């Protein structure tokens, strides 16, 4: 069983559309991270959310951490072809400082021109 469930797993949209990716769990996380990965490369950190209810914006990307710190969402406004990639959420449980992240399965986003 996957501790962090991402949905949808695949998303194909037209340029200019909005989209939301969800990351859900029954467990509480002390923090949650979102990564973006391009083909042939490793994931790159986009944002870390720490406080329940926290909202962070990164240009057209909006990240939210659920009030109970069990879920998170990534919203992209007016998607562009450059947003194409694999989006991964990853959580840290408890007070661990060892960096042992638990990853979701990933959401593959394709933005067509």
């Amino acid at each position, binding site marked *: 069983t996957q501790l*962090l469930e*991402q949905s949808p797993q695949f998303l194909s949209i037209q340029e200019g559309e909005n989209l939301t990716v969800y990351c859900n769990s029954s467990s509480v996380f002390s923090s949650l991270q979102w990564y973006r990965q391009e083909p042939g490369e490793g994931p790159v950190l986009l944002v870390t959310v720490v406080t329940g209810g926290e909202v962070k914006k990164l240009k057209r990307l909006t990240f939210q951490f659920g009030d109970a710190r069990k879920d998170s969402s990534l919203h992209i406004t007016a998607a562009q072809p450059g947003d194409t990639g694999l989006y991964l959420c990853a959580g840290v449980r408890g007070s661990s400082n*060892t*960096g*042992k992240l638990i*990853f*979701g*399965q990933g959401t593959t986003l394709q933005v067509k021109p």
Partner: protein
Amino acid sequence: DAGITQSPRHKVTETGTPVTLRCHQTENHRYMYWYRQDPGHGLRLIHYSYGVKDTDKGEVSDGYSVSRSKTEDFLLTLESATSSQTSVYFCATKPGQSNEKLFFGSGTQLSVL
């Protein structure tokens, strides 16, 4: 970019042969990790290291061993490769205990025939 180099980038081997993957970092990061990435599973932690000669198991450690004799190098060994170990392997590093951001290498594509 934490100056992480993984070698080799691609490898094809036969079932039953030993395989060693190398991760080299130039940033003097304390923590190093080996993940495997498979479709539908996201990234899963194999082993990690919190210092020279200090290592511990992750969630999918069976069939794998690691060694860290120097800060900059973290080796992953498959003692006797199996087809189920066909995967993309990523090395990651983290600077210190209070910083949870992971820096990833570009990955090694391993095929076990």
